[in-house]
């Protein structure tokens, strides 16, 4: 396995090396305007070096060694630029390969024309196939119930923690791929082809088939092109101007100055920054449908977070069992145990565990005689019937009242208190008489409050949506520090929040997976669909998380910002580099004409050609040195914008200035050893 991976890595490196040479084709070179100027300059220098007679008397002096050295360094500069792009490309290809292995598959029971169920992989299912759904199954694919009824846990998909009843007829007949059948059995018709085609589309994107430049990149390219044009004017006008001083400026030094001043660093790395940006997102197991989606993620200022799955674990856990007034605690714990002994839902298991931990014990014999009562849509309660006919039930206050149980005031108050703290209270009854209260709690994901604080720091507002009642929602919202929450929310509410925020000119993101989330996913500026979700949802979203972890939304924001910061930082680096390069080349270029300009030669590099070559070498090798930064992205800290700006100005602005001064000097000292 390891050797396989190694072999693959070697293969991609080879692809990168080959790619770096194909970049020398004129048609390929012309795609990157800044580097194309370097390309043309290299051709010019090559001609000057090898065929000086072509230029007749236009050359001031001729120095074969010096010109050859410049030509070679220019070729290296071009090769480095090509290599960085090819490397990012190869990495993308590797990612695409690994993506292909990520198609989530489950087993399904397909009913053939004879009516017999056969086990097949979900990817083999096609629209219109009939499948059999049984208790405990994961629904393989979006489908519509055509016969029977099932209770489905959709919490992982829709955030709805209440089990849902799905049956033929009416509008509650569609089951979502990835949801779990809690009880019942049904036949269903597949309503969508598997998401494989969708995944293929993603793979194409990652492989670089249709990578488009984003608005930001286009704007930056415009800036770089203009800068290049102006610098060409600045440099070429120096030829007649030095003629005014009866001085022939050296063509080699002039070309070198132009190349050094051109924003070659950012120009060379721009394509790989873009490709690496998309690749980085893929490494988080998130697939972006376009580079634009990644950039937009960096601009978000409102996140719509589903409570279930994003902020809380998703399953509620029993944390307390409170006896009703006058009831023996031991007895109540035992009753709780009985109510959940055969309940396989997370709520049931946790109730049983809690009761056991508090000392309730039940004979295996007794357990085997219990008759489980499943949660159904009608009764909305679950529990067990004991062999002596005693019925033990647990359910919400509303369900109990509907079943005729009267709820005394003290219990009602406890129920209210539990709701206030964000918990879900269940009433525990024996033969319709209240025994006590089981308090279920949403377990907040560890560290989520810190993440939300981080977002707040970055200036991003969070809105929590949940199907829970107001009190529960309010308590959790307060606990984790979200800015706003919407209780008893339906998918329609999400849509409404998105529309509201957008009308206030905010950029908003949401996660979703259900088909009913699709409109909101499409409407949101960034819609992150879960891979476990329906194909409709994935189609509507502009990003898909292969791990189906809604918390990723927060990471996606950071990745988007990182992409932009990398571009900005390297642009600044490129420009401040230029200042140092001026100080190295200008005194060298005019040293024989204006010796007084040696004051500017703060690096003290002599003789003049050495200064020119050192600067040119620095200009070339800074590209491969920065490839890791371009590929990895600039480190992003979740702080406010001014702090970030201050930090990046120091790091890449001042850093660019100093590193160029020091780098050029070091190279000059090294080259000086060989320079005669």
């Amino acid at each position: 396995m390891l050797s396989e991976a190694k072999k693959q890595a070697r293969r991609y490196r080879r692809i990168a090396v080959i790619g770096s040479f194909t970049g020398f084709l004129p048609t390929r070179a012309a795609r990157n305007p800044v580097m194309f100027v370097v390309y043309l300059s290299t051709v010019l220098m090559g001609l000057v070096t090898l065929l000086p007679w072509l230029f007749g008397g236009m050359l001031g002096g001729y120095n074969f060694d010096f010109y050859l050295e410049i030509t070679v360094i220019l070729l290296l500069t071009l090769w480095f630029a090509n290599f960085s792009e090819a490397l990012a490309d190869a990495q993308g290809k590797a990612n695409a390969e690994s993506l292909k292995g990520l198609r989530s598959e489950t087993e399904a029971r397909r009913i053939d024309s004879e009516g017999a169920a056969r086990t097949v992989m979900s990817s083999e299912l096609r629209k219109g196939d009939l499948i059999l759904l049984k208790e405990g199954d994961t629904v393989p694919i979006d489908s519509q119930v055509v016969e029977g009824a099932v209770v489905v846990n959709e919490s992982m998909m829709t955030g709805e923690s209440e089990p849902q009843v799905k049956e033929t007829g009416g509008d509650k007949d569609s089951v979502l791929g990835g949801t779990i059948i809690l009880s019942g059995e049904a036949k269903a018709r597949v309503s969508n082809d598997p998401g494989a085609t969708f995944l293929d589309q993603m793979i194409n994107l990652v492989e670089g088939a249709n990578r488009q430049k984003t608005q930001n990149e286009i704007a930056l390219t415009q800036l770089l092109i203009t800068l290049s044009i102006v610098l060409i004017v600045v440099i070429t006008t120096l030829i007649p101007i030095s003629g005014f001083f009866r001085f022939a400026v050296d063509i080699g030094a002039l070309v070198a100055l132009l190349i050094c001043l051109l924003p070659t660093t950012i120009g060379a790395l721009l394509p790989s920054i873009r490709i690496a940006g998309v690749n980085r997102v893929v490494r988080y197991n998130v697939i972006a449908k376009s580079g634009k989606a990644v950039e937009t993620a960096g601009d978000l200022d409102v996140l719509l977070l589903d409570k279930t799955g994003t902020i809380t674990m998703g399953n509620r856990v029993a944390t307390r069992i409170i006896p009703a007034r006058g009831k023996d605690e031991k007895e109540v714990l035992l009753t709780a145990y009985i109510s959940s002994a055969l309940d396989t839902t997370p709520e049931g298991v946790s109730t049983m565990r809690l009761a056991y931990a508090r000392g309730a014990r039940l004979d295996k014999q007794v357990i085997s005689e219990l008759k489980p009562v499943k949660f159904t849509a009608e009764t909305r309660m679950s529990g067990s019937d004991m062999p002596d006919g005693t019925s033990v039930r647990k359910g919400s206050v509303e369900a109990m009242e509907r079943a005729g149980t009267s709820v005394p005031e003290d219990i009602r108050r406890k129920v209210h208190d539990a709701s206030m703290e964000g918990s879900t209270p269940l009433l525990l009854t024996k033969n319709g008489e209240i025994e006590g209260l089981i308090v279920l709690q949403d377990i907040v994901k560890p560290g989520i409050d810190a993440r939300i604080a981080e977002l707040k720091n970055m200036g991003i507002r969070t809105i929590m949506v949940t199907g829970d009642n107001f009190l529960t929602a309010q308590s959790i919202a307060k606990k984790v520090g979200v800015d706003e929450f919407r209780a008893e929310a339906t998918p329609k509410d999400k849509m409404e929040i998105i529309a509201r925020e957008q009308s206030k000119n905010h950029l908003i993101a949401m996660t979703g997976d259900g088909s009913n989330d699709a409109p909101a996913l499409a409407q949101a500026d960034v819609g992150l669909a879960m891979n476990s979700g329906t194909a409709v949802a994935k189609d509507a979203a502009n990003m898909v998380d292969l791990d189906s972890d809604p918390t990723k939304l927060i990471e996606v924001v950071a990745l988007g910002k990182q992409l932009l910061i990398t571009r900005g930082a390297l642009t600044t680096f490129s420009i401040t580099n230029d200042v140092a390069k001026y100080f190295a080349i200008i005194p060298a270029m005019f040293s024989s004409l204006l010796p007084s300009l040696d004051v500017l030669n703060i690096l003290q590099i002599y003789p003049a050609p050495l200064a020119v070559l050192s600067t040119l070498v620095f200009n070339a090798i800074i590209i491969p040195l920065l490839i890791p930064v371009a590929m990895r992205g600039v480190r992003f800290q979740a702080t406010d914008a001014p702090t970030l700006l201050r930090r990046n100005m120091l790091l890449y602005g001042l850093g660019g200035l100093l590193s160029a001064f020091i780098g050029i000097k070091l190279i000059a000292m090294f080259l000086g050893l060989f320079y005669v």
Partner: protein
Amino acid sequence: MEFIEFAQMAFLVVVILVVSYYLGIYMGRIYLGKRSFLDRYFGPLENGLYRLMGINPRHEMDWKEYLKAFLLTNAALGIIAFLVLFFQQSLPLNPDHVGSLPPLLDFATAASFLTNTNLQHYTGELQLSYFSQMGAITFLMFTSAAAGIVVAVAMIRGIVNQNGTLGNFYRDFTITITRVLLPISIVEALIFVYLGIPQTYQGAVVAHTINMGAQTIFRGPVASLEAIKFLGTNGGGFYGADSAYPFENPTALSAYLQLITEASIPFGLIFSYGHMVRNPRQARMLVTVTMGLFLVGLAIALFAESGPNALLHGLPINQVAGNWAGKESRFSVAESTFSLILNTYTQTGAPMVALNQMSPLSVASAMFGMEVQGSPGGAGTGLMNLLVYVVLAVFISGLMVGRTPEFLGKKISTGVMKYSVIFIMIHPIIILAPVAISVMSGFASLSSLPPNEAFTALLYEFTSAAANNGSSFGYLLTQQNTSFFLAMESIVMLTGRFAPITLALAIAGVMSSTKPLTQTKSLAVMDDPIFAVFLFLFIIVLSALLFLPVLALGPLAGYLGG
């Protein structure tokens, strides 16, 4: 530098800031259409004018309409001025019976004043009639200032508006003249008359001096020109010697008044901007940046001028008090230097010094102001340049904080970016290309000067023309090359004026149709002091990148001694 000199400059800076603040707020209010006490006096006049011209002042123009109105108006004004100059011999108010000018000089002069440049290749008192001084020169001083201001206002509207409109050009243009330029100029002209500046239709008089000589004393409607010359950052003098002539600048009070006047609209418009976009904090930051750039330029020049003049080295001259060459003994070295830097940084171009006798380092600093053009720059055009710098700085700094860059909440689209980068590109090209052409054509062979000084003069000339500044070394034109330079400079002045303005209106148009995003405080970079630092450094580095080689060959080498 003595304490008194420091105090003189500190006083000027403080007064400039105070005056421009109040003027800026006032201007902001009138462009927002707020009522003012002048409504009673000028309202009927303006309405009459609108009716006369058949204009609906409430019609909101998009950027193309605005640009069309702008260009048409300017074309008409240019033609009128040209005709006035061309026929001056046969027009009235010519008591000294001056003849006509060569047509190319008429054209260059019209272009020069139309573009707020005021490069003068004529001697006013000898070659222009009073009618020309009033009908062509002073007239264009008002309109060119108003036109520049109006562009800045349109840009501000582009930032504020969301419906694609920039206001009504004709209304903006009219009220700029009636509410800002005319009232202030009238009051100031009267003060100038009181201080001794001539204002008469009578011709020159001949005075008999005590040593029995005869001296012709030229006079005319000077005071009325003088006020708008500074208020509108024009800078072209009535007399050939401009502000170095006592009749244009008779006393210390007039000198101070002129300096304060020329800085008040460039700085004031930044305050107007803050007022109109409802972000006074932003305005204070931009004023700090521009004032910072100005003070850096001033410090460099003061450093150079406080030392001895290298050309006088070896002569029996005591230079302990600094470089007094080219300066009036009525003013201190600091005051004179302040005048040079303020005149180049505001694109007024009427310094009360002789440029060719200043230290080359001061000249470099002055040129830097004309290369930046936005520190604070000319009336209106300064803010226009500054806002383009802000767009570019916001773009890069926005990327550096990981958001699609926003200008006060409006995303910087590729359209805005495209126009902004072309805008920045124009200035260096229209300086460097003509310089290169001049030296290649051989018209710039100034054999009488050392090459370095000649090159500095040449570079200065085109920098001044491109920046629409108007100050000049003055000895470039010879018998052989007059036509070449007049034609070349006219092209540079017109391009340097109308190309950036066209792009600026296009930027305003795109911005005006962009919906702003609501920003949470911690996301807005533009309001943080660190952005001011970034902008300050960005402007310096960008200008250095484009102009360092020529500055090194010209004034820097001159300063360092070749």
